[in-house]
């Protein structure tokens, strides 16, 4: 599921017309390697920078967090928002 989340994040970044390096710089990261780590599906977007990540992609923070929760914690997402909610 993290891989699917990574693909989704990659698409949203492309929509925002940002490179991995652009996004990393805007998030205050020295290198863009972590963006790649997340987009390749090996790590999650850390909660502490989830809001900033959403802002840079032009997505509403709660919608962004809710969408990622669907991939990262599907059961918790189902309990909170029901099976139909996305």
């Amino acid at each position, binding site marked *: 599921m*993290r891989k699917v989340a990574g693909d989704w994040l990659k698409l949203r970044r492309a929509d925002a017309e940002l*490179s*991995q*390096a652009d996004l990393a710089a805007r998030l205050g*990261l*020295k*290198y*863009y*390697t*972590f*963006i*790649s*780590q*997340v*987009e*390749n599906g*090996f*790590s*999650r977007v*850390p909660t502490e920078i989830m809001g900033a990540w959403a802002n840079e992609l032009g997505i509403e923070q709660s919608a962004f967090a809710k969408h990622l929760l669907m991939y990262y914690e599907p059961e918790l997402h189902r309990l909170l928002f029901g099976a139909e909610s996305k």
Partner: protein
Amino acid sequence: MSVVAFERKQNTGEWSERELSAILAALSAATALGTGREWETGVTEKGDVQFYLLSPLPDQACELCVSRIGGRYILEDGTGRLLFEHWNLELVALHAKAAVPSTSWLMVRAITLWCAVRSALHEKAEPWLAEGEELFVQFVPQLAAFA
């Protein structure tokens, strides 16, 4: 006149065998059989190579990541924390070795087993101890009377 062929620095593409060997040698204990850890490689959108040390199943999350950008090696943890960077891979690999979470699954299993044995022993010994305590409570007044 002869031209000296300098070795071209690998900046993008794939890990060389020498590089992968250096990383895997440093992480040999972390990736040993029984730890449950695995590793994978990937690339950034610019084609910089990355090495991911993954935690055991089911999570298989990145614990450490070594990337090579323009001849420089970057060591990060799974949350994006920059741990070390240097052009010398051997040095970076040493830092990676030191950064591996130390509580191995074998250790966790050993502790769990120890707790289970202790709990079982306690359960068996408890009736004996209770019985002993009961006897003691019964006899103390009598012993006190003799004293």
